[in-house]
């Protein structure tokens, strides 16, 4: 696994650079700051996981990059993809980038497909539009992609409507559609959350295969740390609109630094150990997004909180590429 994480070619500039991204929403309860200043880079061929619970800002980060924020949302900052700032593009220009160079897969495979069109129709339109292929070529390409995501009898099943597919098959179709134009970047927002656990295992397996075979970069957004253990090169942990920790997957799982990451890892139920350990909760609730307290946003729930935490903690970055937003110097080996 360690060797795999190093397949990123050295010296090539990052495919995506996010600079000081801020996202806010105008709501009846007041202005909600969903993301408050996020910076990160994504290398060619890298798989980055953004992990956080509801209200952490993980999904709104992706929506802002893709220009898909809800009407009451505004974003500032820069998202440099291939030398162009996505945040400065017009809707038409964004439409060209989306679906061709950047694809996005959403959480709910039930609603992301048009129920009135066959799978064939929905796939072929995309290929003909973005790649200028003829109908027959486009169909052959679509069948090939369905086979790649393990839809049995793709020549037959391509004529079906979405409701004739199971939830897992629909998510596989969406992944196939996301890959049709061989994008440089795939953004998957909770791609397995609505699926059964056995189907989730199949989809993770599929993504793991994809990233070994292709040079595509992937951002996978999830609330469940365990889901990305096998597929992430790097992980960003978000809490209440901020990055609280960044590191390689091994850093995050084996040597988590931030007390929130540590708590999150402890609260994941494990079945791979006989006997197991009791479920450990993080006490309290995440802060109300309308009135985020000053200082460390995790302070109220943190077992290590002290006076220094009443000041905003800086994101401390180290030479090995790690970062942690905590005043405490912590490096705890998690028992394996």
């Amino acid at each position, binding site marked *: *696994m360690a060797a795999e994480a190093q397949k990123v070619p050295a010296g090539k500039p990052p495919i995506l650079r996010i600079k000081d991204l801020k996202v806010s929403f105008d709501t009846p309860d007041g202005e909600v700051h969903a993301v408050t200043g996020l910076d990160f880079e994504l290398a060619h061929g890298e798989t980055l996981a953004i992990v956080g*619970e*509801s209200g952490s800002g993980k999904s709104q980060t992706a929506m802002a990059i893709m220009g898909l924020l809800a009407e009451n949302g505004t974003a500032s900052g820069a998202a440099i993809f291939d030398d162009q700032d996505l945040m400065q593009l017009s809707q038409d220009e964004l439409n060209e980038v989306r679906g061709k160079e950047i694809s996005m897969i959403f959480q709910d495979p039930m609603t992301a497909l048009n129920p009135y069109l066959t799978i064939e129709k929905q796939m072929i339109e995309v290929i003909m539009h973005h790649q200028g292929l003829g109908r027959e070529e486009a169909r052959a390409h679509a069948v090939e992609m369905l086979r790649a995501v393990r839809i*049995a009898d793709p020549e037959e099943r391509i004529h079906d409507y979405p409701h004739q597919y*199971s*939830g*897992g*098959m629909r998510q596989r179709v969406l992944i196939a559609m996301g890959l049709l134009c061989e994008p440089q970047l795939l953004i998957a927002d909770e791609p397995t959350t609505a699926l*059964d*656990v*056995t*189907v*989730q*295992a*199949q989809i*993770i*397996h599929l993504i*793991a295969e994809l990233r070994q075979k292709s040079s595509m970069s992937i951002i996978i957004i999830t*609330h*469940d*740390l*365990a*889901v990305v*253990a*096998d597929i992430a090169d790097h992980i960003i942990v978000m809490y209440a609109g901020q990055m609280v920790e960044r590191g390689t*997957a*091994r850093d995050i*799982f*084996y040597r988590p630094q931030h007390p929130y990451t540590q*708590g*999150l*890892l402890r*609260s*994941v*139920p*494990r*079945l*791979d*150990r*006989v*006997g*197991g*350990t*009791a*479920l*450990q*909760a*993080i*006490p309290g*609730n*995440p802060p109300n997004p309308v009135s985020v307290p000053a200082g460390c946003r995790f302070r109220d729930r943190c077992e290590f909180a002290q006076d220094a935490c009443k000041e905003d903690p800086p994101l401390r970055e180290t030479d090995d590429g790690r970062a942690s937003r905590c005043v405490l110097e912590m490096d705890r080996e998690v028992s*394996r």
Partner: protein
Amino acid sequence: MNAAAKPQAKGQAKTEAAAPERKPVLRVQDLSVHFSDHVGHLFSRTTRTLKAVEGISFELYGGETLGIVGESGSGKSTLARAILGLVKPRRGRVLWMGEDLVQLEEEEMRARRKDIQVVFQDPVASLNPRMTAGDIIAEPLRTFYPHMANLQVQERTRGMMKMVGLLPNQINRYPHEFSGGQCQRISIARSLVLNPKLIICDEPVSALDVSIQAQIVNLLRSLQKKLGLSLIFIAHDLSVVRHISDRILVMYMGRAMELAQRDDLYRKPLHPYTNALIKSVPIPDPDLAHAARRENWLTGDMPSPFNPPPGCVFHTRCPYAVNRCHADIPALRRLEHGDWAACHRAEGLDLSVGDG
């Protein structure tokens, strides 16, 4: 309570000790729920039958927690609704304290609901947004005891709020002012207000964040201990349910696959489907997750519930299926340690889970 409720319980001879009292409060016998649906055009109309729940039997003891686990389409929620009398079974009995609930009239069933309460999955959607937390919790009291004095209702409501970890001064707040975890605490307080004997929890933590799930599971455990409740805890995977169940029933396509003591089930599952469910839970450890990927995982998709496979319903996806599995329906049989499995090959397979 009992030895099996502690996660460290090491247990051979604990099979007998697992249930605190050897007296079932609930006996479900051969329960089947079928739905039908008409397809086709006016002149070629046919009726399809969906066997949502087929021949389920189990007993639940006082103070015991039974986990019911299955993926979507397994029939777990329909089973719960049949026990609650919200859907009419086609066959079978639901014996509550010896009385068959299936035979009861609507009015009589309403009275029994005092004893049997339910907590649903979506804590926000299942609470009336126009009612205060206090009114939501007190509503069952006002329904069952319309003459209870206001002061008494208030007092009991505040007591319930304290018991589930809410602040009594939040009594006049509305659901949207609470987080998801707090809303689930309100639902639990409401389910407890009539002093029930059994609470059916239908995926009570599935919609909650991971760090909050553990809070709610731990709350349910401590309440059960304090109040001597019986619990049925329904879940879609085997992860959380491990931390609260004494025994676990695994369902697939409406049928029981395995019914076993908690520790036996995780240590040595008897049914290949249980094994697949265990193996599907992602491991928060890159090296172990990578190694586990190489192991056999479940292939294919669940067959259409309108047209279940002959023989064992799981044979189309089972890596151990032999000819017999395609033809004969396996009965749920009593095997080692008093655990039950519906698999022709259960004795011959060793599905033990290694340590780490």
